[in-house]
């Protein structure tokens, strides 16, 4: 089995659109949450959301390419470009090597709605234009990235609700580890618009602390009242350790464990047992003990039941090892399909810059969270190994362990 390392990363999120910007936000505990009044008019309970600038890709993509890009593809494209640049992977490299692409994505609501609305009005399917079908399919990100960057390896999208991005990275790691692919670009994308989250809002699981948006997302805090939806794009470039050394690439971290599980229970209510199994499997595969993990980037979305169950699961797996724990969703909100990938990027930034980002808005942890070693303020500390959790509807769970080399 080959060792798998990360040599490039990219991010387009509500706390920054470059690695440097995001590093600053993470270190300073800056929230990216705002109120979008249009959501109220649309019928939302909560107008809270993360927000990102609208990309302008006119100068770098042809009209033909842009016709197939929905917002989630735009975000993923920018993150991917950053990751390639950091990994020193140029188009010649992409043209001469077999690069695989796996991204997490689980909706294209805006593209679907815009097309259907047009057909309803015009009564003519042709008039949605040529790009609509490519924007509307769930695999839109990987079909666009593989086309634009001319990628020739494995190419598909992973849909696993809010664990999509994490599973994409985990599967990419497995492919390289087993020698099936030499290079992988993996990540996640998440659209941000009223169509994307309407039915989610309807479940009553979004925070309604609209009076102070930056304090609305408060994972593990006893006053939490729900998650805040968000989105963007995140990407990492992975290759074998030998390849990275031969290329002289800077190694940002080594993926050493990917654990997965399914709760086999309720479609939306999480439990502790499933996540616990995923974490245990990741730690076992990493061939380390729980006490060797310095930091856990929790999935914790700021929902009452979800955070409590994750706290129970972390306590069960780590016990006295008691690693530092924080949820960067306190700053970013819940980046859903991309969260598993973006939180790997956030944690890699901490790993490479010697700090642990805070779980902001944490005033009084609830009973289960109080047993965790929660990070309320930024800690300047070198960390060697972290574990990142991601869980999703349907009870899908993913845990990834990464260490500094």
């Amino acid at each position, binding site marked *: 089995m080959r060792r798998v390392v990360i040599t490039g990363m990219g991010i387009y999120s509500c706390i920054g659109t470059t690695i440097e910007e995001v590093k600053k936000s993470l270190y300073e505990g800056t929230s990216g949450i705002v109120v979008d009044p249009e959501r109220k008019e649309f019928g939302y309970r909560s107008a809270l959301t993360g927000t990102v600038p609208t990309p302008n890709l006119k100068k770098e993509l042809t*009209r*033909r390419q842009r*016709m197939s890009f929905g917002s989630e593809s735009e975000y993923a494209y920018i993150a991917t470009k950053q990751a390639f640049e950091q990994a020193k992977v140029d188009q010649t490299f992409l043209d001469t090597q077999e690069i695989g692409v796996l991204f997490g994505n689980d909706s294209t609501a805006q593209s679907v709605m815009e097309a259907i609305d047009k057909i309803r009005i*015009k009564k*003519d399917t*042709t*008039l*949605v*234009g*040529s*790009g609509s079908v490519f924007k509307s399919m769930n695999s839109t990100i990987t079909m666009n990235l593989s086309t634009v960057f001319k990628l020739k390896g494995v190419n598909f999208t992973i849909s696993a609700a809010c664990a999509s991005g994490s599973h994409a990275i985990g599967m990419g790691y497995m492919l390289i580890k087993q020698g099936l692919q030499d290079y992988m670009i993996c990540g996640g994308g998440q659209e941000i618009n009223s169509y994307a989250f309407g039915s989610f809002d309807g479940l009553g699981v979004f925070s309604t602390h609209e009076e102070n948006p930056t304090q609305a997302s408060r994972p593990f805090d006893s006053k939490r009242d729900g998650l805040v939806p968000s989105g963007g794009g995140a990407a990492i470039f992975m290759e074998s350790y030998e390849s990275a050394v031969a290329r002289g690439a800077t190694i940002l971290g080594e993926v050493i464990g990917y654990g997965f599980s399914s709760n086999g229970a309720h479609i939306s209510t999480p439990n502790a047992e499933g996540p616990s199994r995923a974490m245990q499997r990741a730690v076992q595969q990493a061939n380390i003990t729980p006490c060797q993990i310095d930091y856990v980037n929790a999935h914790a979305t700021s929902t009452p039941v979800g955070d409590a169950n994750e706290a129970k699961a972390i306590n069960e797996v780590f016990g006295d090892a008691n690693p530092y724990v924080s949820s960067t969703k306190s700053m970013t909100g819940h980046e859903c399909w991309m969260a598993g990938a973006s939180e790997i990027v956030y944690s890699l930034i901490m790993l490479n810059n010697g700090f642990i980002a805070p779980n902001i808005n944490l005033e009084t942890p609830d009973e289960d969270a109080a047993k965790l070693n929660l990070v309320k303020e930024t800690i300047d500390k070198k960390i060697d190994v972290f574990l990142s959790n991601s869980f999703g509807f349907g009870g899908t769970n993913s845990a990834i362990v990464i260490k500094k080399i």
Partner: protein
Amino acid sequence: METSVIIEKVNAFLIEEFEVEASEIAVEANLQETLDLDSLDYVDLVVAIEASFGVKLIGDDFVGIETFQDFYTLIEKKVNK
């Protein structure tokens, strides 16, 4: 609709939506080569024509269309039918 108006409106959407330089547009120039059209782009031409003139073309309408002049003439016939 007068020919000059049709040409003006066609050129406007070609410049705006198909991102062709105005200087590249010439009545005898090859439409497909100048706009770098592939099969999907003809769908977008149908959309643009419908949006600009309210008439719907089908794929077969483009058979034999080689120059910008051919294209203008095709649209003029459809619009003034």
